[in-house]
C-alpha cells in the first residue's frame, strides 16, 4: 500500500544536535561481510556452467594488422570459443580498447589465458607511435583524430590587458607546471559476468551505475531494458572509471549471446592500465603577477590537456582564486592512447597543482605569508576559517620560516605548505527510494544505488533509522539491484546530494503514514507523535509509549510501503576544503618524507562521521600518491606503456602514510546534505610541493616530486 504525505508537512532534516543516528560514527552495514570475505564482488561471481573469457589486447598503440588468427586458440583444451574482434587489414588507431583484437572463452581461466597466448597476430607497427604530447605537437606528425592532434577547447579574457596589468605588478612569476597521467588503480579491475538465456539477462558488472547499466547491456544483447537485471551489491572501487560497461561488457555480452552460457570477463591488471581510463595529464604555462599589498592582480595561462583520445579535463583558470585580470587558452593535445575518463574531481588536482604553486610562488616573491596571501585572494570566508584551522593544526605559527624558504646545508629540512579545494557536487532528480514496514516490525529501505565504498548502503538505512528513532541495526538496506527503485550513477560526488534526499523523503512519507495508523491507538493527533528510542508516544507523554513492534502491528497484513524521491531543498551542492602538509627533505639525497597532512572539509550535515573521515583520509593519500609516486610512462620510440602493472606504477602504501588529521568542518551549519569525496584529493600534492619549497627553496613544477628531480634542483642551490 503506497501512502502520500500530508501536504502541509514539508520534509526537512532534523537539527543536528537532536540526531541520534546521523552525524555520528557508524558501523558500516556491509562491514561484516567484507571482513569475513563473504561479500561477493563481480570478480567472485561463480555460476553453474559459466565460462571464463579473456581479451587479447595488443600493447602497440598504432598498427596495421595483417593477420589475427584464433584457430590455434580453438585447439587449446578447454577453450570453447575464440573469435577475432579486429581482423587483418584493419588498423589499430590507439592503445587501449581499440587494440582489443580477439576474445577467448574457456572452461577455466587458465585455458582462456592459454587460448589468448595461442592467437597468432601479425602486424606492422606504425611510427611514430604518437604516445607523447611532443610527438602529437610535432609539425609533420600524423593526424590521430578527425579534428587533428590539437584542438582549442576554450579561450577567454584579453591577453593584452593581462600583460598590461602584469606590467604594473611588483612581482611576476613565469612558470610551466606539468602533471603526468594518473590511473584510478581500483583494486578490482573492470569487468562483469553476463548470464543470458536468449530472452532475459542477469548481469554482474563492477560498476558505479547499477540502474543505468541495464540500458547498456540491453543494447549489446539486443533485448529490452526491462529484460536486463543488474546486480552489483559490492564492487571494488571506481573513482570515476566504472560508468559504462566498456568494451569488456560489450564483448562479454557477445560471447554470452553466442554460447548461451554465463560469461565471466574481468580485465587483467595490465589491461586495466591500458584500456580502463585515466586522469588526463596536463601542462600549464603561467604568467602571474601580484602587488606588494598581497593582491594577485593578473594571470595568463596557456594550458594543454593530455587526455589521449579523450578531451582531458581542466577547470578554467584562475580556478578558485580571485584574479581580476585574467586570460587563458586551453587546448586538447591528443595522443594515440586510451581516452581519459572521469577521475575523482576531474581536472581539479591538475588545476590545483599549477594554481597553488603559482599562488605560493607569488607570496614568497612579495615576501608575504602564503596563508595570508591565499586568504587575501579568496573571497569566501569559508576558506579563511578553513585555512586558519589547518594552519593551526599543522603548527604554522610556530614554524621558523614562513615567508622565505629554509637553507640547503646538507641537513634534513622541514617545510609546510598549503592548498584549498572546491567541488560542485550537487544533486539531481533520478533517485527513488522505497521504505517498507511490516507488521512484525521489520523495516527495509531499498534503492538501486551502488556503494563504491563511500558508505551509501549504510545511510540508506541510517536516514530511516533516524526518522523513527530506531537503532541503525534495526533497518535493513537493500541496494545494488536494478530491480529496486532507480538511482543516479555515482559520479561527481552526486550520490549523496541526489540519494539522501530521496531516502529522507521516503522515510518521512513512511512516518506520516505510520503516524496515521498509530494515532487512533494512542488517541492523539497524528502530527503529535514523537518517535524516540525505539518507541512512539504522544508528544510530552512518554509513559503512554508503544514499542516499535507494537506500533508496527497497526500496519495490518499488507506492508506499509512509502516511496520518496529527490527533494531539491534537502541538498546544497558546493563544498570547500583546505589542506596542509608538513614534510622533511634530506638536502643531500633529495628524499622527501611527508610527516603530517591535515584536511578540513565541509559538506553540510555529516551523515556518517566515520565514513567522512575515511573519505578524507583516502583522498589525502591519493593526492600524496599522485604528488610523490604516480606516473604513467611510455617508451616514446616503441610506444609501449612501461608502467602497465602495479610494480612500475606505484601507488602509496602504508609506508608512505604520514600522521593524518581529518577534520569535518562543523562550522558549516548548512542544514542540507552534499557529497564531498572529490574535493579531498584535490590540493594535497600541491601542498606537499609547496612544503618542499618552504623547506629548502626547491620549487619542483613537474610531478611526481621524485628524489632525482629534487636532487637536481638542490644542486643548483648549493
Amino acid at each position: 500500500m503506497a501512502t502520500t504525505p500530508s501536504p502541509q508537512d514539508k520534509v526537512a532534516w532534523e537539527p543536528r544536535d537532536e540526531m541520534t543516528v546521523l552525524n555520528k560514527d557508524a558501523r558500516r552495514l556491509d562491514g561484516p561481510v567484507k571482513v569475513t570475505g563473504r561479500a561477493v564482488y563481480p570478480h567472485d561471481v561463480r555460476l553453474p556452467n559459466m565460462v571464463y573469457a579473456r581479451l587479447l589486447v595488443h600493447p602497440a598503440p598504432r598498427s596495421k594488422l595483417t593477420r589475427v588468427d584464433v584457430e590455434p586458440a580453438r585447439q587449446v583444451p578447454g577453450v570453447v570459443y575464440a573469435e577475432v574482434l579486429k581482423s587483418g587489414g584493419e588498423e589499430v588507431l590507439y592503445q587501449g580498447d581499440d587494440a582489443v583484437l580477439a576474445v577467448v572463452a574457456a572452461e577455466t581461466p587458465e585455458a582462456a589465458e592459454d587460448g589468448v597466448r595461442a592467437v597468432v597476430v601479425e602486424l606492422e607497427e606504425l611510427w611514430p607511435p604518437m604516445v607523447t604530447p611532443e610527438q602529437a605537437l610535432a609539425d609533420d606528425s600524423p593526424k590521430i583524430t578527425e579534428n587533428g592532434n590539437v584542438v582549442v577547447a576554450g579561450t577567454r579574457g584579453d591577453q593584452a590587458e593581462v600583460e598590461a596589468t602584469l606590467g604594473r605588478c611588483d612581482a611576476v612569476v613565469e612558470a610551466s607546471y606539468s602533471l603526468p597521467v594518473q590511473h584510478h588503480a581500483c583494486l578490482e579491475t573492470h569487468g562483469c559476468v553476463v548470464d543470458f538465456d536468449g530472452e532475459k539477462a542477469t548481469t554482474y558488472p563492477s560498476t558505479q551505475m547499477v540502474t543505468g547499466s541495464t540500458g547498456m547491456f540491453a543494447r549489446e544483447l539486443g533485448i529490452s531494458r526491462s529484460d536486463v537485471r543488474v546486480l552489483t551489491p559490492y564492487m571494488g572501487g571506481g573513482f570515476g572509471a566504472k560508468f559504462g560497461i566498456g568494451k569488456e561488457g560489450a564483448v562479454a555480452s557477445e560471447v554470452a549471446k553466442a554460447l548461451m552460457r554465463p560469461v565471466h570477463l574481468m580485465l587483467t591488471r595490465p589491461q586495466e592500465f591500458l584500456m580502463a581510463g585515466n586522469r588526463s595529464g596536463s601542462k600549464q604555462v603561467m604568467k602571474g603577477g601580484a602587488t606588494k599589498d598581497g593582491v594577485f592582480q593578473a594571470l595568463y595561462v596557456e594550458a594543454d590537456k593530455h587526455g589521449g583520445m579523450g578531451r582531458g579535463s581542466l577547470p578554467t583558470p584562475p580556478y578558485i582564486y580571485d584574479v581580476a585580470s585574467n586570460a587563458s587558452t586551453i587546448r586538447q593535445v591528443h595522443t594515440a592512447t586510451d581516452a581519459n575518463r572521469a577521475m575523482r574531481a576531474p581536472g581539479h588536482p591538475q588545476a590545483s597543482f599549477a594554481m597553488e604553486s603559482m599562488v605560493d610562488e607569488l607570496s614568497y616573491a612579495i615576501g608575504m605569508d602564503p596563508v595570508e596571501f591565499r586568504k587575501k585572494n579568496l573571497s569566501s570566508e569559508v576558506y579563511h576559517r578553513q585555512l586558519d584551522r589547518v594552519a593551526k593544526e599543522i603548527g604554522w605559527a610556530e614554524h621558523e620560516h614562513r615567508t622565505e624558504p629554509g637553507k640547503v646545508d646538507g641537513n634534513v629540512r622541514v617545510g609546510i605548505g598549503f592548498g584549498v579545494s572546491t567541488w560542485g557536487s550537487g544533486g539531481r532528480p533520478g533517485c527513488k527510494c522505497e521504505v517498507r514496514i511490516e507488521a512484525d516490525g521489520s523495516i527495509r529501505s531499498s534503492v538501486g544505488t551502488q556503494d563504491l565504498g563511500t558508505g551509501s548502503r549504510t545511510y540508506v538505512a541510517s536516514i530511516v533509522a533516524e526518522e523513527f528513532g530506531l537503532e541503525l541495526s534495526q533497518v535493513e538496506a537493500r541496494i545494488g539491484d536494478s530491480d529496486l527503485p532507480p538511482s543516479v550513477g555515482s559520479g561527481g560526488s552526486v550520490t549523496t546530494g541526489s540519494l539522501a534526499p530521496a531516502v529522507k523523503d521516503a522515510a518521512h512519507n513512511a512516518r506520516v503514514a505510520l503516524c496515521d495508523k498509530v494515532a487512533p491507538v494512542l488517541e492523539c493527533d497524528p502530527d503529535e507523535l514523537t518517535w524516540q528510542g525505539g518507541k512512539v508516544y504522544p508528544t510530552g507523554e512518554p509513559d503512554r509509549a508503544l514499542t516499535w513492534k507494537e506500533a508496527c502491528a497497526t500496519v495490518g497484513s499488507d506492508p506499509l510501503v512509502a516511496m520518496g524521491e529527490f527533494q531539491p531543498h534537502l541538498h546544497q551542492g558546493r563544498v570547500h576544503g583546505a589542506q596542509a602538509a608538513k614534510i622533511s627533505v634530506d638536502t643531500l639525497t633529495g628524499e622527501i618524507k611527508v610527516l603530517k597532512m591535515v584536511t578540513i572539509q565541509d559538506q553540510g550535515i555529516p551523515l556518517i562521521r566515520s565514513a567522512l573521515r575515511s573519505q578524507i583520509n583516502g583522498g589525502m593519500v591519493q593526492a600524496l600518491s599522485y604528488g610523490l609516486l604516480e606516473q604513467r610512462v611510455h617508451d616514446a620510440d616503441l610506444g609501449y606503456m612501461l608502467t602497465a602493472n602495479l610494480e612500475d606504477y606505484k601507488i602509496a602504501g602504508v609506508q608512505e602514510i604520514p600522521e593524518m588529521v581529518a577534520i569535518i568542518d562543523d562550522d558549516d551549519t548548512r542544514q542540507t546534505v552534499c557529497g564531498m569525496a572529490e574535493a579531498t584529493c584535490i590540493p594535497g600534492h600541491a601542498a606537499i610541493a609547496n612544503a618542499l619549497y618552504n623547506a629548502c627553496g626547491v620549487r619542483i613544477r613537474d610531478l611526481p616530486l621524485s628524489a632525482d628531480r629534487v636532487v637536481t634542483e638542490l644542486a643548483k642551490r648549493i
Partner: protein
Amino acid sequence: MTIDNSMQISFELNGSMRRARVEPHERLIDLLRDVLGETGTKEGCGEGECGACTVLVEGRAVNSCLFPAPEVEGLRVVTIEGLCGEGLQLSPVQAAFLEGGATQCGFCTPGMVVSTVALLGENPAPSASDIRNALTGNLCRCTGYVQIVEAIQSAAAKLSAGGEA
C-alpha cells in the same frame, strides 16, 4: 598429444582436509577461488604487488597469486573464510576492522585481515613500524590506511589482554 602432468594433492583448508587434482603450474589462488569456490581471497594484480590474495600457509602470509598450488601438499592453509569462529563469529582482527571502520570498497580487506593475523600470530604486540612492515605488501586505494592501522592497533591491544588473533 596432450600430456597430463596433473597431480593429486591433499592439504588442510580452513580446518578440513581437501583433496584436489592440480596442474604443476597452477596458482594457489586459482585452486582456492575457481576450483574450491573460496572467493573471499581476491586477485588485484596477479603479480605479487597488491596483497589482496594473501592467505596463510602454515601460519605465514603468502601471496596466493605467486604460490604454486602443488606446494600446499600436506600443509595447513587458512583463508579469510577460515578466520571466523562458530556461527560466523568474528575473530578479534575482523571485529577490529569492523568496529574501526577500516573498510571502504573492501576489496583489499581480506588480504589486510589475513596479513594482520599473520603479524599478530608472530608478534602480538607490534610497534607502529612492525605494523607498517607487515602491511607493506598490501595496497588499499580507498581508505588511506589510517583506520586500517588503527584497527590493527586495537586488535593487538585486545590480543595482549588475552585472546587469539
